[in-house]
């Protein structure tokens, strides 16, 4: 069973195809020799892809089910790995199939057909697993290496898939590719890669909004941490949840053109600034709205004082916009204040009582994707003629 949920094709809907490949049973050393063996060694068992795919599925079920722009229409899910391969849906628990080529092909055809049903549909494609590139991007499926002498026959050739979808009626198509974009060139030089196209590609395609969001830049590896969803997946879901949102028209909206910059800033925020996400080329990213948020996005913040040592004495508060009412506060601590709350304008106050510093407040916008600020505070000057305790509040 790969269809996790199918709510029909009426009206604009989001139709998702989610693939997480963690096992590569045909890439064992003992069943290949020569260059194939060297290549097979590249495709080791992965723990992050199945977890990432399941996390994406859970997010779609939780956040996209009743979304206003394009509520969830269907999910095709294929996962392999040592993790639990069941998903809880509104209709019950579903055990999903492994991402072998035949299973992926069948799921793809169903997904493509549903996407094609309405021009307002959003096609959502997510792949996590090994990857490699040689002019084109290849996505090896679980049975890659199955056929000796045709190592890549059970891999997808992504570019033709994306360009082939150019004739699909879904006017917004998002492709999230969480995979490496290199394999040692000397290895690939030995191969004419005979991966399969799921669709015929066409040079002439209609204009559409079709961001291909790669977890890493061309020629680089995609990093992950064993036993948890990949950092890219987590950042991507955070971006879709609201970190990639702006308010051009008074509503918080996630648009396709903000995805990469938001994901990169989220990853930099989490201390991973070197691993950059990028858009694939050759398709347009027109900036269509893919989600309208029901409320305000959550914005992570780091607030401190300048000088930092003032934090030892500072009672920090976030004030309700344009008032003195405290929304959140924190007792003096040597560390910066880290948290997350609704996007809006706050007052940020550092109060010191009879301490060495003068109280200070400033208004600041908690604005996605994240916010960091050091509030300048001044030391008391006893000889300054009775400087008040609230200098600029």
């Amino acid at each position: 069973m790969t269809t996790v949920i199918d709510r029909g094709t009426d009206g604009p809907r989001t139709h998702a195809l989610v693939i997480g490949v963690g096992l590569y049973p045909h890439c064992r050393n003992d069943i290949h020799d020569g260059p194939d063996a060297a290549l097979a060694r590249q495709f080791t068992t992965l723990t992050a892809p199945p977890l990432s795919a399941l996390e994406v599925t859970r997010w779609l079920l939780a956040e996209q089910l009743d979304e206003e722009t394009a509520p969830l229409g269907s999910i095709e899910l294929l996962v392999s790995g040592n993790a639990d391969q069941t998903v809880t849906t509104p209709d019950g628990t579903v055990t999903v199939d492994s991402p072998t080529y035949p299973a992926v092909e069948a799921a793809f055809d169903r997904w493509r057909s549903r996407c094609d049903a309405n021009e307002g549909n959003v096609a959502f494609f997510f792949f996590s697993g090994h990857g490699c590139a040689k002019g084109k991007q290849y996505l090896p499926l679980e049975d890659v290496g199955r056929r000796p002498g045709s190592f890549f026959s059970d891999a997808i050739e992504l570019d033709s898939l994306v360009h082939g979808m150019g004739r699909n009626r879904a006017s917004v198509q998002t492709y999230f590719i969480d995979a490496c974009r290199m394999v040692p060139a000397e290895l690939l030089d030995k191969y004419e890669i005979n991966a399969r196209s799921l669709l015929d590609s066409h040079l002439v395609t209609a204009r559409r909004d079709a961001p291909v969001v790669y977890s890493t830049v061309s020629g680089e590896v995609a990093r992950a941490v064993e036993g948890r969803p990949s950092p890219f997946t987590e950042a991507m879901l955070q971006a879709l949840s609201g970190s990639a949102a702006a308010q051009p028209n008074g509503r918080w909206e996630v648009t396709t053109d903000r995805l990469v910059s938001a994901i990169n800033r989220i990853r930099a925020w989490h201390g991973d600034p070197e691993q950059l996400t990028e858009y694939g080329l050759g398709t347009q990213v027109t900036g269509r709205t893919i989600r309208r948020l029901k409320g305000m996005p959550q914005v992570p913040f780091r607030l401190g004082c300048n000088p930092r040592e003032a934090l030892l004495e500072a009672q920090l508060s976030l004030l309700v916009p344009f008032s003195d009412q405290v929304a959140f506060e924190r007792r003096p601590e040597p560390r910066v204040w880290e948290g997350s709350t609704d996007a809006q304008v706050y007052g940020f106050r550092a109060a010191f009582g009879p301490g060495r510093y003068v109280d200070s407040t400033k208004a600041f916008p908690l604005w996605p994707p994240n916010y960091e600020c050091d509030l300048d505070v001044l030391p008391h000057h006893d000889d300054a003629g009775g400087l008040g305790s609230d200098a600029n509040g």
Partner: protein
Amino acid sequence: MVGAVEVVDDRLVTVTSTVVRSEQDAAVELPPGRYFARGWLPAGPQLQAAFEVASAEQTVPLHRCGEPPADRPGAGGWLRLWRHRGRSWSGTVPPELLTADVLVLSTSHGGSLGVQIVDADRRSTITMAPTGVPLRLGGAAGISLLPGVEATLLTYLDRGDLPSARIVASDAMSQAPGPGEPDSSLLDTAVGYYLLRTGNPRADWWISELSWAQPDSVDTTILNAYRLMQIEGMGHESICEELVRAASNGLPVVAEGLRLLISGLVRAGDHQDAPAHVERLRHYAVALAQGPLTAFPGLEPAAPRTGQAIWSGELPVDVLEFDLGAAPEVEPEVEVREEPSAAEPALRAARRLVAAALAQLQSSGLRPGRQRRDVTVDGEELVFEVTPSANAVHFDLELRASPLPAIMGIVVSLQVTAGVHVLESFDETYRCRFTDVPAGAWVFTVRQPLTQPRLDLSAVSLPVLLREPAFAASDVHHSTEILRMVAPGRNTLLVLTFEPPDQYRLEVTQAAGVTVNLVAVEYTERGGATVLRLLPLPPGTGRASGSIDLQDMDIRAPWQVVESLPPEYLTTCSDDEVEASIGATASRAARMAWRSLAGLLSPELQALIEEIR
């Protein structure tokens, strides 16, 4: 610097956007209210402002948060210009440099041009170069675009920051409604890439016009092929021919263009020479360096290398040698030394933090310009800020730690040239500031205090030599200056000289006070004992100076100084210490100062003072 900024109101609704340039005002019209501005410079730092608009015109400064990653310029090398002629590349004489590190290629060159840079380490990089815009020599890619609107737009596109790219491209299009203006070819091309990427309805018209304005440009040909791909009913043949024409004319300037070209040719299938071009071009795709321009390691444009390309031949005749030797003057190099320590655990940890932070700074290097580094070691933070003077030959430096009481009093020595040190210590706000430091090869040392110091926390640990100074035979009868140190606060200059055959003499100079000022020096003798010596400086209106011999000093052991003590401090010292200090006096001014202090001393010591000459 050029950047894009969005402005939101107090409900965070986007109300406008603008392009901002360093030192220039950008005009936006806003109704009265409270607003916030935010943007990111292409290199990463964020721009922010919060402001309230009343009825009158007002200017709001943007604050920059964070620093771009440092790009260390190379020291020099040579460059060669390559021109694509028909099916091959040939070397041609490059133009003269505009300045020591800036090159502009004439728009009359036409066609595809590559600039080969071979640096001082003989690494060879080839960059496809645009004409009519200044190109900076040096940096990781050999050449790069100088900051400007073209570089900003291409970098935003390269990094996928499409909202910022939209702001810059819209601004560019509002100022030049169509492509083809003189000296705007790269900007026109960059706008073309933006319009294509974002599926903008103006792309069709813009790229058509660009094809007329830049008919020989590889970038334009690629853009035109992709424009044709979006025209319903367009024949496969026309698109393929355009792609093959692009591939035959050299290489695109913009890296995105190269990737598009390969992708397009792959989709062209077996059309004419498309497969052969794909096979050739994919070597470039693998070798392509990060960044918006097409750049790759290679000894010639036709042969990209995936690893480093090292030039091993003779210097070709048609090259231009360049020397960025001026750069190191404004490019402080940082070295860190840590002396062994036997201090308290908290102090040791604090010293390790400072040393490790400075070591991290060393590994990343500095660059000209104002910059800030945040370094975290074992959970403790240390911020390092460098601010250059207007002429960038002097710098102010500040080390700022998170609250860490043990760090107070730790002395950092900054060696600016051989034997010249500037000393500063962490104060009660956990800051250590160096001001007006000349550019040069800097060496930081975290100073080690004495094991059981006689002097208190106000003492300044002084630099030690790692080995005994060795002097040429001809110097054996002459004193030699070996250390020149400026103490924290810059009120005291300390000069240590070697007096043959085995003596060290310290000269202390500082602003004269209204009374005698005592300078205390504590050092380690060769036998391991710690000794205290006092040097009185006479009162006056100008500078006061005096000298003292540091007998039997171990130059490799810690030593320290207290710059200012009241005369009454003498009463806390033993007679032996005072007697030894009087005996070590080595200047007339100091002897005179001792005489004025005689009233504080015992009759025996008074008699000793009378004996010294």
